[in-house]
Each structure stands twice: as C-alpha cells, then as structure tokens.
C-alpha cells in the first residue's frame, strides 16, 4: 500500500495549472451561454402562444429531469451522427451552457412572475407594448431580484464542469488524471484538484457577493 507522497505535486503542478486555465475558459464560456440562453427560454416559457410554450416546457422538463452527464453524452456522441463535428471543448461548453440555461430560465421566469402586477399595469397604461414593458420595466427588476439564485447556479456550474473530463475535455480533472497516469498517485492529485476547485469556488462566491450588492434594488 503506497501511502502519500506530496512531493509529486511540486513536480507536476504545471499540468494542473494548465488544466486550471482551461477550466476557467470553459466555465466563462459556459456561464455566458447559460445566461444568454436563459432569457429567451424564460420568456418562451411564459409566452401566451401555446406553440411556443409547450415545446419550451417539454425541453425544460427533459433537460431538468436528466443528468448533465447523460446530456453531455448526447451532444458528444449524438451530434456527429447528424453530421455536426464539435471538439470536446465546444461540446462541453454547449452541454454545460444548455443545461444551465434551462436552470437559469427557471430562476428568471420566477423572477419575472414575481415582479408585482402593478408594474406591468403601470407601464402598459402609459402605452408601452408588451415587449417594451418587458424590456424596460419587468426584466430589469426580475433579473436584479434573482441575482443570488443565478449566482448559486453559476457556482454549481463551476463544480459540474469537472464532468466534461469524461468526454475528454482537457480541463483540471483530466489534467489531474494525466498526472496520475504518470505517477500512479491518485489521492494526491485528486485532492489537489479538489483544493484548486475549492479556491476558484471561493473567489467566484466573493465576486458574486459584490455583484449582488451592486444590483440590489433596495437603494
């Protein structure tokens, strides 16, 4: 039974750092996609047009009811079958982005619905159209009220990004596995990777707290 040899971390930390860089890129892109994608999905879910609402509802139900890993498999293995060839990194971004767009849309939809009815009435009674009223009055309030919940989703995204290592994206977890394949010391490297994730998580939470304070409506 081997025991622990922490010196391997000092030798191999460049590999982990490289993985960390890719994780940051991966997460930044996925977060952006999930936020941008969440808005139309949220609006589609409360559309008065059944042809828009039902497919949206089905899509949300499907992607909320199945694991991210399964969805990643669908994208990574399924798209080539219909002629779309994406790199693991792009597949990973797409998978994470779509999955969390769905979760974000739920949060945003709740925020939109929670905006007092009177706001809607006031803007409509001034003559604003439904779309203008949504854009200028409802959405700004909805989005700032759900910032904390969205923040939680982003933190969850960061942690679930480890899954894309399974579809061979060269991020932090896969880098740890590369180091392990050379040193046969899984405990040290997975532990180190965990510590690095913990660190990024910590900074992300700090950043989100600052954003929350800035966008709070109670001035």
């Amino acid at each position, binding site marked *: 039974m081997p025991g622990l040899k922490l010196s391997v971390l000092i030798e191999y930390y460049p590999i982990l750092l490289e993985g960390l860089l890719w994780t940051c890129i991966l997460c930044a892109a996925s977060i952006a996609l999930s936020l941008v994608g969440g808005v139309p999905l949220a609006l589609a879910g409360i559309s008065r047009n059944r042809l828009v609402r039902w497919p949206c509802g089905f899509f949300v139900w499907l992607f909320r009811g199945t694991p991210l890993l399964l969805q990643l498999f669908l994208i990574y293995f399924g798209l080539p079958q219909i002629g779309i060839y994406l790199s693991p990194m792009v597949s990973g971004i797409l998978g994470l982005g779509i999955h969390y767009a769905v979760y974000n849309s739920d949060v945003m939809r709740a925020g939109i619905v929670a905006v007092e009815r*009177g706001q809607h*009435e006031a803007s409509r*009674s*001034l*003559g604003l159209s439904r779309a203008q009223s949504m854009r*200028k009055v409802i959405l700004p309030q909805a989005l700032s009220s759900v910032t904390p919940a969205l923040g939680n989703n982003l933190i969850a995204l960061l942690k679930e990004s480890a899954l894309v290592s399974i579809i061979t994206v060269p991020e932090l977890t896969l880098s740890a596995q590369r180091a392990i394949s050379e040193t046969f010391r899984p405990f040290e490297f997975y532990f180190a990777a965990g510590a690095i994730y913990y660190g990024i998580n910590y900074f992300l939470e700090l950043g989100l707290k600052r954003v929350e304070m800035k966008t709070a409506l109670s001035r």
Partner: protein
Amino acid sequence: MVKVINVYKRFGDNEVLKGINLEVLRGKILVIIGPSGSGKSTLLRAINHLETLDDGEIWIEKVQVNRPLKGRKFEKHINRIRQDMGMVFQHFNLFPHMTVMENITMAPMLLKKTARSEAEASARQLLAKVDLADKVNFYPAQLSGGQKQRVAIARALAMEPKVMLFDEVTSALDPELIGEVNKVMKKLAEEHMTMLIVTHEMRFAAEVADNVIFMADGVIVEEGPPRRLLHNPTQERTQRFLAEVFK
C-alpha cells in the same frame, strides 16, 4: 369624451358590472363612489383595458377602446390609445429601478420619440407643478407615499393624455399625506383636465366633481351633481351608504 355603453363584466360566477352606461364630457370631472365590491375600480380599469369586458363598448372621443381586433392589430391599437389616457394607481406602481426623472421621461422618449433634453425639461415643469422639483434624481424608495403618488401623477401627465383616470389614489396613504395629493388633483381640475376619479373621500368629491355616480353591486344606483347626490340622495341604497360614511 369618454363614453361607456352597456358594459358587462363577470369574474367566474360573479357578475361585477351589470350594464353600465355613462358619459363624461371634455373638461368635466366624474367621481365614482360606492362600497367595496361595487365594481367601481373594475369599471375604471376597463376603460383603459386593464380589464377585458364581456359585453359593451368604451369610447374615447371617436375611438372605440375595446375594438374587436385580434392579436397584433389590437396590440398596436391599444398601445396607441393608452397614450391618450393617464392612469394613477392606488399603489403608485412607480418603477423602482429608475429615478424620478427616468420614471417620468421613459415613456415620452420611448413612445413619442421625444428628445431627451425636451423630455427632461417637460419633466422638470411637471415636477414643479406637483411640488417635487428637488426630487429629480431620487429613487422611489427614498420618497414618502404622498411624494410617490405625486410622481405617479407627473408620470401620467408627461404623456399629455386627454383624460386622467384615478383609482383610489389616496386609499393607501397615511392621512397626513392625502392633502398634498388632493391639492395636485385640484390643480388639474382647475386646468380643465377631463378626469374620472374613484374615491372614498366624500369631501374631496364634493369639492372637485362636476358629476357624481354612486355604484353598488355592479350597477349605477344614482347619478347627479355632487351637491344634490351627496346631500339629498333620492335612492335608498345611496342614503344607506352615505349614512354609514358620514357617521
């Protein structure tokens, strides 16, 4: 100016408006009083289509508000006609994420394509009119109830409406703040703005109204000039209501 013709409205099994007919001429002020549940707020809200009607017509000058159009066409129509009507709500409904100035200038800039400088100048004039010139860059959360309601009135006036609708605008205010709002409404009355006011305040009604309507259980029970209706009501229902109110 405003014509309500044979209007019916039900919420589920509950018939809230049972054949309402009324008319308000230009520059005149109509006050609607009545017990809770009489349908007076519903009627007011139906005039700018915040409530749909089951039957009947609503006309503003020569345009029918509840035209039988569908979809996009109706949307365009209703958005346009709402610009001619200003509404002030019981709970103010100011936009909390915008300053007072932004609350007032948003609609004119967006819908009438007014230039910012022009919109802001008009806004300042309106704020001066409602005695809030110094609150230009404040947020609604920083204002008292009475101040918020005055901003709400200024916001509605910024669109230069033909008629103003007031839905129990002082009901949510602390008593000492009611006066400042009433003062503004009196000013508007003196400028001959056409106004429909739903209120519980009888004294105010007596002062500003050209005509008073008493509603109960979805029908107009009695109608007439304030002096007559409030002091010598002919209908028993009206008498009962006023007796309770003036106790």
